[in-house]
């Protein structure tokens, strides 16, 4: 696409040049005024040096050289070459050896990551507790300046939980939720 613009520019410049030369030959480019008459050649050398400098400074120097040093593939890569690159040992997926069953629920988990099933189980319960707390507080930024204790059905707050805020939940304490 760039070559087209350059060609168009070159054509325009050359046409202008031809036009100037024709005007000079016809004698119409000089404004009629008292001037010095000199005996010399009719076609004077044009002050075209600045034009060339202008032209070369517009384009990058050696525009035709840059096309030659652009990198391009020489030949089509065969499917054998492509396959050896794509199926190299480093590009294949490695088998994981750190998967084991979770002792609590029996689902699979990675050794250094929490079990997904147990985590969703705990998240659901905490979401319900948070809803209860929001209902108790009524609005944002109204948390009391004391600790919270969650009491399930059939339980009573113990001696340690005297100064704490009590959040009641109307269900049986889940087996995994220790005191």
């Amino acid at each position, binding site marked *: *696409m760039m070559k087209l613009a350059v060609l168009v520019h070159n054509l325009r410049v050359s046409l202008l040049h031809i036009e100037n030369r024709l005007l000079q030959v016809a004698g119409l480019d000089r404004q009629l005024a008292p001037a010095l008459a000199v005996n010399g050649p009719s076609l004077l050398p044009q002050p075209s040096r600045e034009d060339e400098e202008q032209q070369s400074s517009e384009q990058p120097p050696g525009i035709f050289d840059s096309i030659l040093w652009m990198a391009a593939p020489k030949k089509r890569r065969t499917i054998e070459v492509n396959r050896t690159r*794509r*199926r190299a040992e480093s*590009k*294949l*997926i490695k*088998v*994981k050896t750190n*998967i084991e069953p979770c002792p609590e629920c029996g689902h*699979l988990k*990675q050794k250094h990551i929490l079990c997904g099933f147990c985590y969703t189980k705990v998240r659901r319960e905490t979401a319900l507790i948070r809803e209860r707390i929001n209902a108790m507080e009524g609005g944002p930024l109204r948390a009391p300046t004391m600790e919270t204790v969650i009491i399930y059905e059939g339980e009573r707050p113990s001696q340690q939980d005297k100064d704490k805020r009590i959040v009641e939940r109307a269900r049986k304490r889940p087996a995994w939720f220790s005191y």
Partner: protein
Amino acid sequence: MMFPPQLPDEPRRPAEVYHCRRQIKYSKDKMWYLAKMIRGMSIDQAIAQLEFNDKKGAKIMKEVLLEAQEMAVRSHNVEYKSNLYLAESYTGKGTYLKRIRYHGRGMFGIMDKVYCHYFVKLVEGSPPKTEERTSLDQAKEYVQGLKNRTIIHGL
């Protein structure tokens, strides 16, 4: 796959289950890596590996394997659902949709919306043990083959 009925003194042929999913919105080359990983594994190991893989195709492949396992137990006379291994697992190209991708200067390219198929064959039994040949063994065998060359009926 249809076989003739087995004679009473032939060894029992292990049960085979073929399953596939068509037109999965994923690239066949990207799916191939996962298919290559689980080729030859037992079904439990394959499901475990796919569960903890982060690729989009892993989730789809896990569903396909679970479906195939259930099909095997229900209608293909397989006794234990863990006693299966992956004999074949490969991908194929689905029918692509073509769309226009707009470039600068009024140029355009034709974009392919890729789809792939995934095929799996479960066979009853424990997975076969492939002998691991190191490169040193392969080199030794090659040299031995060169040494065994001789001219027959020569002096």
